């Protein structure tokens, strides 16, 4: 490698450079090193030795900065003689090897130069030969051109004659065609190739017209006219028979038109035929409707109508427009009228069919059917914009959608009523011994969830109408009014309203006496409405608004209004519940007061059973209400104060009130005292509105009951023992009723008044000792 590298730059330093010692060798080495550098090689690599640590080392034989003097100095200084000798021989040997390598290279390259020179010389000769041949070619070409021009000139004359002859030939062919025309036409007519015949006629017509002054042509024309007339007649015949399908008819008409038949008339006939066909379709559709339909499902029906009638109509319209385009607006108007008339009949049929579907529950099928129906009618809609079929179809779809909404509303109402019936049954079901009544809370949850699921189902069903893939969902009605007025207002708000109304109707029912509505149902409904007010309404409406992106300007009922209505309903129901329950207890008390002979009653030994019953019932009501309503707030005084309060009531206050009645003082005092007492007590509003909690409800019921007791007592006259019995009864009630009411003072007041009234109604008022009263009550 070192040898090859050295070959380029220094070919001249050849074999003659004999080594005259290390000194003489030095410039050679340097050059070699420089050559190596020129080839981009590092010295280390070139020398086949690992590169020294310092490439600038002047003592490196193969380095670029080799300095022979330094090297020699170093050798001389550092090496012993023997080593010097060795290196000398070694160096000499290396130099010789290099020299011989160089010689070999030079020889080889020399040969190559020689062969290259030979090649170039040969090429020079070849090019010269080629130039000659090119010249010859050019002269030949010139000759050829010359010849060609001469030939063309010679042929010119013939060519013109040939062209003329060809023209004559064509003319003759045409003439022949004309002369043959009658027979051809006849043949065509015979063969039934009407199209061909009409084409021939069309081609010949103009010529014949032009040359009719020539007798021969005239004859042909007459013949042709006769034949054409026959042709037209036959075409007409075929057209009238009309057995064949619409395309063939269209063809007939087209041919007739081409024959120049009056378009007006043809147009009429064409439509008449089309009408016949379409009416057949309609009849078959109607047959499917039938009086007792083996009704194919609505999807199939609309499919059939779509492909049969609407398809037919499309064909007719397309053919018509193609054929009678020349008729202008009058023709279009005729077609529109035609389409309108038949369309309206078709719509009537579809509506009848859809009406049969109204009762059904499956919305998806209906929506799909409507979708097909609507989609189908969009095609002729584009074709027959003037007939307004698409609009009419949209209208039908809208109407059906509206009816569906109504249907769903009915469904929801029915579901609600069904729930109520279920609840009634559950309430009326005989109670299993040991089981504490029907779980009102459970019933409530059932009702609420069942209604909610019904609402959701309805929403989902109605939502199909607005699905993206349905063709009519992007109509303005379905985007706006349907969502807001239809679904939100009509269906959801309407349902909630009707629910409230249904619930309220229980308050107005004349069954106040018999209690046609079980009180528990009233309570349950009231709670239901209250729940609606607090959460459900806003939930449902949010759900609706989300599902049906309401996006128009129609005013919608705000949630707050509905909530207020629901709350009002709940309040009325609860108030009614209080009234009904109060009435039940009132009736008991009233009967007990009215039917007893108070004058001749015996000394009281027991609390009367009816009072126990009152307390029991009140407890039951308390439990019932507690199932659905929260406890509520009582006045602070409470719990164990009952005893204490009562002792006050029975001793001091009671005594105070009786005192004037049985001490013979002025009668004025009674009034004075009772009036003064009234000054300090608030007026008791008996049938006052209740709040939504247990205590308030119970307070209401107890107020009603005790007021009844008071009024009844005032209508009777009591004997001494009668009075004492009342005393005992009232004490008993006092013992048990305080715990139910918000303000026990109220019970005291009312019971006080009962006893006071009884005392007034007693000619011989001797009250029982309070202690005895207490003993009797505790025993009973």
């Amino acid at each position: 490698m070192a040898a090859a590298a050295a070959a380029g730059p220094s070919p001249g330093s050849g074999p003659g450079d004999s080594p005259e010692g290390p000194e003489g060798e030095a410039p050679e080495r340097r050059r070699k090193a420089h050559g190596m550098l020129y080839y981009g090689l590092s010295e280390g690599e070139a020398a086949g030795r690992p590169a020294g640590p310092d490439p600038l080392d002047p003592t490196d034989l193969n380095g670029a900065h080799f300095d022979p003097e330094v090297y020699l100095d170093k050798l001389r200084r550092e090496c012993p003689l023997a080593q010097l000798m060795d290196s000398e021989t070694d160096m000499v040997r290396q130099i010789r090897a290099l020299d011989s390598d160089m010689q070999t290279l030079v020889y080889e390259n020399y040969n190559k130069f020689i062969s290259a020179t030979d090649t170039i010389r040969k090429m020079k000769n070849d090019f010269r030969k080629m130039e000659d041949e090119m010249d010859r070619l050019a002269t030949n070409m010139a000759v050829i051109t010359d010849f060609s021009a001469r030939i063309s000139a010679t042929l010119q004359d013939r060519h013109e004659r040939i062209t003329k002859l060809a023209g004559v030939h064509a003319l003759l062919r045409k003439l022949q065609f004309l002369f043959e025309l009658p027979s051809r036409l006849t043949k065509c007519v015979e063969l039934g190739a009407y199209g061909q015949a009409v084409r021939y006629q069309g081609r010949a017509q103009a010529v014949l017209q032009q040359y009719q002054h020539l007798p021969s042509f005239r004859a042909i024309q007459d013949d042709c006219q006769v034949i054409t007339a026959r042709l037209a007649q036959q075409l007409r015949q075929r057209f009238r028979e009309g057995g064949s399908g619409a395309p063939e008819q269209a063809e007939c008409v087209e041919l007739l038109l081409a024959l120049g038949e009056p378009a007006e008339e043809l147009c009429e006939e064409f439509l008449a035929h089309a009408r016949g066909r379409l009416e057949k379709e309609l009849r078959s559709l109607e047959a499917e409707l039938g009086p007792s339909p083996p009704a194919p499902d609505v999807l199939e029906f609309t499919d059939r109508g779509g492909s049969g009638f609407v398809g037919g109509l499309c064909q007719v319209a397309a053919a018509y427009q193609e054929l009678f385009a020349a008729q202008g607006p009058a023709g279009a108007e005729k077609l529109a009228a035609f389409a309108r008339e038949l369309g309206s009949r078709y719509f009537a049929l579809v509506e009848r069919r859809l009406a049969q579907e109204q009762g059904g529950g499956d919305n998806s099928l209906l929506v799909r059917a409507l979708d097909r129906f609507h989609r189908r009618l969009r095609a002729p809609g584009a074709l027959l914009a003037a007939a307004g079929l698409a609009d009419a179809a949209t209208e039908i779809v809208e109407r059906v959608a509206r009816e569906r909404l109504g249907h769903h509303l009915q469904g929801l109402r029915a579901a609600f009523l069904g729930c109520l019936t279920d609840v009634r049954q559950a309430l009326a079901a005989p109670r299993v011994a040991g089981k504490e009544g029907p779980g009102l809370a459970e019933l409530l949850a059932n009702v609420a969830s069942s209604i909610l699921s019904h609402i959701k189902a309805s929403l989902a069903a109605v939502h199909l109408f607005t699905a993206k893939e349905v063709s009519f969902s992007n109509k303005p009605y379905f985007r706006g009014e349907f969502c807001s007025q239809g679904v939100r207002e009509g269906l959801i708000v309407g349902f909630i309203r009707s629910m409230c109304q249904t619930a309220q109707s229980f308050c107005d029912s004349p069954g106040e006496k018999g209690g046609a509505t079980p009180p528990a149902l009233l309570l349950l409904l009231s709670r239901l409405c209250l729940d609606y007010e607090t959460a459900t309404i806003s939930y449902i409406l949010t759900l609706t608004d989300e599902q049906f992106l309401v996006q128009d300007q129609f005013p919608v009922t705000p949630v707050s209004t509905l909530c207020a209505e629901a709350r009002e309903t709940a309040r009325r129901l609860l108030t009614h519940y209080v009234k009904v329950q109060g009435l039940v207890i009132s009736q008991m008390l009233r009967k007990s007061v009215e039917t007893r002979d108070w004058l001749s009653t015996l000394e009281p030994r027991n609390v009367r059973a009816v009072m126990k019953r009152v307390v029991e019932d009140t407890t039951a009501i308390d439990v019932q209400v507690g199932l659905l309503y929260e406890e509520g707030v009582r006045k602070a005084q409470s719990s164990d104060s009952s005893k204490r309060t009562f002792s006050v009531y029975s001793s001091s206050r009671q005594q105070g009130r009786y005192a004037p009645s049985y001490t013979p003082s002025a009668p004025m005092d009674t009034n004075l005292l009772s009036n003064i007492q009234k000054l300090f007590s608030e007026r008791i509003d008996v049938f006052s509105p209740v709040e939504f909690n247990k205590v308030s409800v119970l307070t209401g019921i107890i107020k009603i009951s005790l007021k009844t007791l008071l009024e009844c007592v005032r209508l009777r006259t009591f004997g001494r023992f009668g009075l004492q019995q009342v005393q005992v009864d009232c004490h008993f009630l006092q013992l048990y009723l305080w715990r139910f009411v918000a303000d026990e003072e109220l019970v005291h007041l009312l019971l006080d008044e009962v006893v006071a009234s009884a005392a007034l109604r007693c000619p011989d008022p001797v009250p029982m000792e309070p202690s005895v009263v207490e003993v009797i009550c505790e025993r009973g």
Partner: protein
Amino acid sequence: MEDDAPVIYGLEFQARALTPQTAETDAIRFLVGTQSLKYDNQIHIIDFDDENNIINKNVLLHQVGEIWHISASPADRGVLATCYNRTSDSKVLTCAAVWRMPKELESGSHESPDDSSSTAQTLELLCHLDNTAHGNMACVVWEPMGDGKKIISLADNHILLWDLQESSSQAVLASSASLEGKGQLKFTSGRWSPHHNCTQVATANDTTLRGWDTRSMSQIYCIENAHGQLVRDLDFNPNKQYYLASCGDDCKVKFWDTRNVTEPVKTLEEHSHWVWNVRYNHSHDQLVLTGSSDSRVILSNMVSISSEPFGHLVDDDDISDQEDHRSEEKSKEPLQDNVIATYEEHEDSVYAVDWSSADPWLFASLSYDGRLVINRVPRALKYHILL
């Protein structure tokens, strides 16, 4: 304009019975009967001096028993009938009797009311309505337009028509009818219709209203379940012959057209407890007065079902003012049925209310504690109705 304050009068005893002196058309006079088991009962004749806002009273003793119902003869100022309790042998029986008050009290006394010393005078008994066979008397009603010779009394389940003969000193049972049915049927109240030549009477028992023809003593109509609970009282519209009002324990006041008994024409639900009394104003039947055991008296304006639904009709001789009237009428038309006023002067249950027979704008109400309150229709409304 300011309305006059109510005038209050207190009785010493409990009281339930109140009636205007029907035959008196000049002076405002009410009769009140007391209820006391221990003392002699009294009938207070209360004269109201409208101009001076002063009450004059006279007291008559009614010694036979406590008064549950009182009614005055429409023909004779001095004659009245009471239903009273008589207690004997630990039995209570309600009887009825016709009385005559002393002559000098008939037209009221104009002495100053310092009569604490004056001895109470006694009623003169004209006749008993013999009810031994019929039971407790609930009420006595006079034939409204007649000569004061016919009365009807309701005793338990019997309706009895009496003829008063020989200047009322004798009562002869002319005819009777009775109610048959399950349980103990008991009349609570009755009114004699001023229409149809006074041949109709309406009664209430339990929740039912019935109409009777006094000539045949047969039932002519029946409103079952007129109220949810006991019917306490009823009254005929003085100007519309088929209309009557009823009230009861369901706190409601209902207005009926007796030709259609299935539905009330109108229902009021303003009271918060049993309504004991309902009275039409004698001349202006849109004014309806009710008293209730919630201690309130309510005056309602039932224009829509009154005989003057569009206000006072223009008389023919007012042609000169017609234009004015027209414009006024228009302003009147939107008059709605409403509550005119709620009177809360009472502190105990109000068992009786009634209009004065002399002054159509004045009425009295009586609560159990013996408080009698005399009130007037608000002036604004009065002028509104009149003009």
